[in-house]
């Protein structure tokens, strides 16, 4: 039977296998809306802190931020639990630590950019430093999140046949 399989047909089959693998990897990735939602919440909270200082509005903003974070993360968890889970066979031994390092590095990078910008803006007496600094930090988060997901796809997608 295999003698009758044309190389073009075999190539199409391999392409389909790769497409399905990529489909699973994309479906198990953190979606783009998540990064944007976190960014919008954080910027709104920073703006609230800049405008209201420590008044009642500040604490209301705190409560809204907490509720928003819970909702966004709950939505993500619910989506992930209903979807397929990535097979551990797809993850090469060296890919796991590299992905973990990328994920862990993103958050200190965002915090560092936000704090550094905030300190610089405060020193320069620029108005609304927290809002501007958070917007810069969240731009790093959104861009970094996309890069991280592309890196994940790059690490996981090329492995043919899962294990072996």
């Amino acid at each position, binding site marked *: *039977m*295999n*003698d009758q*399989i*044309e*190389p073009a047909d*075999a*190539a199409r*089959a*391999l392409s*389909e*296998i790769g*497409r*399905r*693998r990529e*489909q*699973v*990897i994309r*479906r*198990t990735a953190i979606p783009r809306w998540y990064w944007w939602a976190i960014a919008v919440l954080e910027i709104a909270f920073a703006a609230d802190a800049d405008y209201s200082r420590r008044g009642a509005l500040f604490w209301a903003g705190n409560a809204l931020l907490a509720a928003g974070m819970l909702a966004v993360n709950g939505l993500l968890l619910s989506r992930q639990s*209903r*979807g*397929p*889970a*990535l*097979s*551990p*066979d*797809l993850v090469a031994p060296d890919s796991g630590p590299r992905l973990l390092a990328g994920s862990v590095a993103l958050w200190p990078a965002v915090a560092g950019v936000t704090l550094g910008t905030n300190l610089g803006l405060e020193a320069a007496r620029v108005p609304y430093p927290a809002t501007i600094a958070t917007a810069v930090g969240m731009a790093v988060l959104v861009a970094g999140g996309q890069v991280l997901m592309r890196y994940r796809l790059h690490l996981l997608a090329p492995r*043919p*046949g*899962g*294990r*072996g």
Partner: protein
Amino acid sequence: MTTPGFDELIHAPTRLSLVAFLAATGWADFAVLRDSVGLSDSALSKQLATLADAGYIEIRKAFAGKRPRTSARLTDGGRTAFDRHVLALQEIVAGTPGRWPQPAGHPGSRSAASGGEPAPGVSP
């Protein structure tokens, strides 16, 4: 070490899509499989039954509240057959197809495959 082995049962277009999807995941919900591969409920049921009969997948039926929930995953045998099939395809593409051993009664033999061809109109 995995040796190449062309598998007719897996190579049918719809089943290839299903097995490739299952190879990249663990347990996959029936609805996820149906929507991902783009099959009707009946076409998916038929293909899953064919693969289960061959011992390539395991089907689990559970209840989420009062709603029945069916999931499937590749068995170790199914994963091995898939890995061997991928290697065989790679060899064909490279232009060096070998003569791969087919175990007696292998579910991917012509007779097994002929009973489980995809229904007309359900191939992706």
